[in-house]
């Protein structure tokens, strides 16, 4: 078990190193002079600020030092949590800018992913057991998965936001409010959160429900189900086995989907102008803020790696077979 986790950790570590290295290389090996390019595009009017920024970035890139030294420096500052200074929001450090957006993205992503997965699996399992439900869940599920995300997002924001006027369609909170811990602000936060959340939730829901339904039906047809039925085992027992076994591919599915879900959340934020990492990426691209972009990408990579690692461990805990295979050698 620990050997397995160790091996997984090693692979994740390797991925991380490669990702960081690529991240480091991009602005450095781009044609032209990206730093000057970036600064001139940042359109800073104050010449003094311009001068200090130029000095700062040239020093940071350490252009007079050998490449390996630059590379090592990059790692050292990375471990100090220093990802440089944002051009767009000079002189705020990149880490601070990112940390300001992360809560929004996580607050959107985690509930949307987990709830759609849980609710989708529930619906799917129900659909597999009752014809009436199957006839409703299945078509709705197919419609949901087949609809392009943009479509759902626009539809929701048009109907619930603009026509009905129940929910705001843009921003993380109203401009008239200051972030504070008050009911007014929390309510405002939630009402801004709702539409982006709902759109992500809905778009993922159908896929999980259909997947679960098909998996359960497959498991109910499996040889072990037939054998138990031949021995007169009650449907309850057979369903329990089928549900549990059908969960395993759904967990793997979650891991596989994670990357695309995160990409999807970037889209959501752009559509709803939600102040998370997605919007930040767009802004930093527009402003040629490579440090910020670098920092965000690094952050996303770390996030995906951590999430995958957690799912790996959960999978080991729920699938006895992987456990057996791992301990088989030592026992």
């Amino acid at each position: 078990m620990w050997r397995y986790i160790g091996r997984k950790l090693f692979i994740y570590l390797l991925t991380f190193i490669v990702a960081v290295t690529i991240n480091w290389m991009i602005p450095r090996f781009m044609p032209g002079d990206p730093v000057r390019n970036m600064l001139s595009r940042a359109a800073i009017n104050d010449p003094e600020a311009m001068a200090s920024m130029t000095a700062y970035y040239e020093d940071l890139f350490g252009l007079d030092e050998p490449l390996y030294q630059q590379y090592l420096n990059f790692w050292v500052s990375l471990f100090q949590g220093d990802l440089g200074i944002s051009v767009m929001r000079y002189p705020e450090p990149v880490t601070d800018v990112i940390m300001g957006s992360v809560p929004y993205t996580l607050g959107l992503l985690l509930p949307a992913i987990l709830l759609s997965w849980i609710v989708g699996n529930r619906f799917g399992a129900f659909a597999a057991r009752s014809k009436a439900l199957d006839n409703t869940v299945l078509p709705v599920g197919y419609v949901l998965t087949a609809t392009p995300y943009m479509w759902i997002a626009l539809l929701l924001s048009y109907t619930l936001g603009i026509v009905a006027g129940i929910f705001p369609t843009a921003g993380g909170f109203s401009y008239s409010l200051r972030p504070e811990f008050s009911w007014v602000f929390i309510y405002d936060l939630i009402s801004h959160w709702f539409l982006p959340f709902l759109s992500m939730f809905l778009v993922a829901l159908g896929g999980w429900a259909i997947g679960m339904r098909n998996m359960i039906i497959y498991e109910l047809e499996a040889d072990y189900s037939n054998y138990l039925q031949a021995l007169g085992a009650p449907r309850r027992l057979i369903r329990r086995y089928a549900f549990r076994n059908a969960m395993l591919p759904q967990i793997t599915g979650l891991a596989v989907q994670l990357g695309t879900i995160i990409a999807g959340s970037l889209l959501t934020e752009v559509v709803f102008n939600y102040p998370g990492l997605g919007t930040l990426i767009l802004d930093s691209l527009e402003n040629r803020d490579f440090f910020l972009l670098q920092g965000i990408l690094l952050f996303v990579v770390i996030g995906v790696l951590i999430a995958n690692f957690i799912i790996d461990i959960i999978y080991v805990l729920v699938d006895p077979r992987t456990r057996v295979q791992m301990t088989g050698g030592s026992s």
Partner: protein
Amino acid sequence: MTLRVNDLKVYYQTLRGDVHALDGVTFDLADGEIMGLAGESGCGKSTLGKSLIRLDSRMRHVGGTIELDDKDVPIADDDAMVPLRYNEISLIPQYAMSALNPTRKIGKMINELLRARGVRPADVTDELHRRLELVGLEPKVLNMFPIELSGGMKQRVVMVISTLLNPSLLIADEVTSALDVSTQRSVAESMVEFRDRGYIKSMIFVTHDISLVYQMADTIMVMYAGHVAEKASASTIINEPKHPYTQMLIGALPEVGSTSTAQGGRLEGIPGTPPGLLNPPTGCRFKDRCPMAFSKCSEQPPLVEIEPGHWAACWKTG
């Protein structure tokens, strides 16, 4: 225990029409009898086995009756069959290798199954261990997952599970096909041992391996394309078969009865293929391949008792 199957018809419903997999099967099984069931692939052996315990969703009971100890076996009524299953009639399926839930430890699965059938696991633990030992397994397999067992071990575990409640009738569907020769023999021997010890009363032993069945079975029934071709004592079927199909089947064997030919005893070597069962031909279903076919064979030959305990369905034997 006596099993009486009378003119049993079970069809598979498919999009292209009904597959007449059992088209009027009649036979008796006496108390303590081990009956070998042979015939080419697709002749309906597994269908017969399943029809005695549980019809799957595509199977339809079209006609005929099954009686166990003079009581009707309500095969078309799934709920009414439940009390009979496992307690009276049990099955070792053809897919025994994959018959165990892959994510449950074997012992735990057995306990859950027993409890679901109203049996306290503690009451049968000793018996379970004894029988595992009898088939050469240690009790520690109960603590393992199916993937940790070899195919032969899984086969034997399923054998023990299926017979744990001492059913009157056991249907063993090709329990030896996937095993090597020496394991085949020991599995077959333990099945006879199970009968001798009274764990089961009678057994239908489906197989392609005639020489194996000759050594362990009391009687052999040969099926062809959803019909019974011939049924008689094992020695009669091997030494004096009457039905042309049985004769060719036996003739295809090199040396019947000698232990060295267990593998050579597969059914093969009859020219042609059996008819499809979607729209089966009228008359004797063997007539296209039968060297003795004559004009009368366009009518279906009835299954008649040509001598005590020897049944055959052929115009030439009647």
